[in-house]
């Protein structure tokens, strides 16, 4: 749930999402679910020349499994907190595995 928890804090931030087919989309993250499906608003496709068919797309729903990267605004990430959250998650996982 760590990633879900993490991405939830990024709602209404501008993120750039690179899909596994190399399309990069910048937009406002509207919501994310536990599958890391992503809803983007005010979509802006980078390299629009290559993907003209996306030129009129204003918002989209991205299935989590096709996402390669999510580029985040650095200022919106609390690294120390994220580290701790990761530690907790690891502890939880270790606890579950036993």
């Amino acid at each position, binding site marked *: *749930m760590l990633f879900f*928890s993490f991405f939830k*804090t990024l709602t209404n931030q501008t993120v750039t999402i690179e899909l596994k087919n190399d399309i990069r989309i910048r937009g406002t993250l509207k919501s994310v679910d536990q599958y890391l499906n992503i809803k983007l608003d005010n979509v802006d496709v980078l390299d629009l020349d290559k993907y003209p068919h996306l030129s009129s797309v204003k918002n989209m729903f991205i299935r989590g499994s096709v996402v390669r990267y999510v580029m985040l605004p650095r200022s919106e990430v609390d690294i120390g907190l994220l580290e701790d*959250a990761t*530690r907790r998650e690891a502890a939880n996982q270790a606890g579950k595995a036993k």
Partner: protein
Amino acid sequence: MSFFGFDTTLPRDRAAPSERRGIFETPDPFAEVARARLVQGFRGGDEDDDAIDFEDTYDGLGDQLDDDQDAFNDDTFGDDLGAPPVGKDFDFFGKTAQVADAIGEEQIRYSLQKPRAPAVAPVTADIIADPAVSAAAVQPKRTGYEKYSDPGYIPDLQAKSSVWGVQKKPEPTPMMIAQAQAQAQAQAHAQAQAQAQAQAQAQAQARAKKMLSLEEVEAQLRRYPSSLPGQIPVSLPQSMPEPSHPLQRAQMPPLPEGFAQLPPELLHAQFAKGVPPPAQLLHQPPMVPDPYPLAPHAPNMPMHLLQNANLPPQHMGPPQRQMIPPGGPQAQQQQPPPPSQSMRANNAQLPVITNPQQLMHLSEEQRVAYLMEDAKRAKRNHKIFLLSKGNGLMTPQDKNFITRIQLQQLVAAAGNVVDTDSEAVLAEDFYYQVYSQIRGAPRQHPHQPLGHFAQTYLLQTGNRLGGHGNRRQFQNADNHMQRMQQQVQRAVEAAKAKPKNKQLIIEGSLGKISFGNAKAPKPMLNLKRPESSEGGKLPKKPQTDLSLSDRKSILTNIEGVYSTLMEMEDMERTMPPPPDENDPEAIQKHMEWRQNVRSLNQKLWRELKVMEPIVPNTNTPHPFIAFLSYPKGKKAIPRIFRHIDQEQRVTILTMIVVHLDTLDVVRRAQLMPGETQPSPVVREAIDLFSQTVMPSLLGYVNEAPFNIIIGLLGLVIAQTHVQLVAKTRIGLGILTMLLSRAEIVKEADQASERDWQQWVEKFNVLFDTLEPTFADIFPSSINAGDDMYVWQFLAAVGIGASPDQQQRLVIAVKDRVMETVTYSKTLPADMASQRLGNVNLFMRAIGLDVELLG
């Protein structure tokens, strides 16, 4: 006797209408008309005065029909006489009802297409004009006349205004007549004749009375003073005992609007028909539209006409006339329609469709608006009608059953969401929860417990059902809601109690179906960690313990420290309230908690390895210094300092001071020859150190007793290469820290004489050691940027220095001061002032000012 018991004598064979008038109690029905017209005239009606509405000629004779005189009904309908079945030709009601929807829709469509034209629906007209054909096409199941075997039965009058209002003779009149005659022969021959007769009679009367002068009208008015003033005196003779029929009653008050809105052409048509002798009736000008033909279309006859068909023949003529008055459409449309659903849907359209004349008197705008509204209404009604098809398919119980199933699914799917308290939420959703706390209110509801969800849902459903307003239904719904709420609660409890089944094994099947939920998605791989792997790790552990300084073990240490820190932070959060002295249980709890905190503190302390023995002259750094060499180690220091006591803090400070020259930020910050500044990695480390560790140390030093400061300074001098340390930012920072604290203590007169002597001794050693290198402690290049920390250090030294030392200090850094002042002149104003301010920090400490340097 004729088939219907009508008077079959043709009008031309009959005596003149005027002679027959004496039979009736209303000798002059047109007096009423005249009065109505008078009333209208007073209202300023702008109608052509000559135009007499056909409806005005309604003489109220229909009210005299006698319901008791249906003795011949059996003859007429052949009921229970063993006669062959009558057949379905009479089932006009049934046939019309069958096509009612089509008619209604067609009318809507047509009225939308041609808003200005009087609504004439060809399809409808065809259907109505040719009932024989439609009868052949549509086979009703019943004749529609079973009802009439009950003498008390009052027919369910379906006021199909569409039947009345839209007719237009589609073909030239002779054909019409021929058709009508064919029909009449088939079913209502006599009736048709009677109608024609009645028409002729009425028209004759109309012609006779048309020329009434105003005086005559007034005279007639005076003759009938007993008319109720509010009543529109058209329909009913005063002597009419009581309305014997709902339809007749409905006909009684034809609205004044009805008169006003009858179009002139209608009247013209009537007069055109009326003026020639009855024989010429068949040849009326084809050009004149006749919206309300009295044509002998049998289906147009209302039920009551058929019912009363066996009235004595002498009554039949005029009553017929009355039965199908030209104003019929208006009168009919005002009848309360039977409450059938489909009928209701159609009924909404009635005013427009059946009464095109009304429309014609509206302005263009109004008409369009009206039609638009009508279309909207029609659409909505149609929708409602479509939707209502499913009405009543499910009982409330059925619906509740479905809802319960859905809620149970919801509970099952959400798993143990219900019983998650804040602890569990924090464990699952730590980052989000803390982040939203740190950075303001959560942007969305982070966690909606099912309890709320279910309650909201139930509440909504309750409102919806309750909205029907039916009290009984409401109570019912309420009851269901209660039951459902209980059900949901039970389901939730069951879901809580039951350990979650992650697999479903259907009986008789070989496979298992595993399922997940939102919290724990179905695992793709389910690997059980073999027990032996735990054993396989064991040999490694002594090894890590053995080498304390390798990277991996250092990182493991750091992680250990962090997990302990998090535990301690959790402990802090769960601190019980301050114990009440009278509550031993609370005291016990508190004691336990303190015990826990203490043990955690000890654990943390062990993990920090501060107390590891210091091994002199070794290449491997002390574990704690190694700990500090990693960024996350540095970052841990502020958190650690919050959880340790003063003694532990001073121990840490001592460890750092002792190992000052082996500290990574000092050791690696030494400049190689030719380097102007440390590598970016080192600079980053230095920055991090100054941001994390230094404030913690400073926080302690600012409260530290003077003897500890003296001890620390002694340690620096004794244990470290002071000259190397002084060349680094961190080293200078720590020295500045100690010197300025000593100065503050001195200023506050807190230092004892002996302590101060001790301090001055140490300080002199430090000064002497550093004097040769004072020029080298600056960043090598003047434009390298930030040298404030150096000036701070020099200021700290200058304050504590003796006048002799101050002079030596000035000599040592004089060049740099001058350089900086000169250099600052080449800089933009704000940067220049900043640089000069830094220098001034030092200059003022020794009683000088940059200004003096000019």
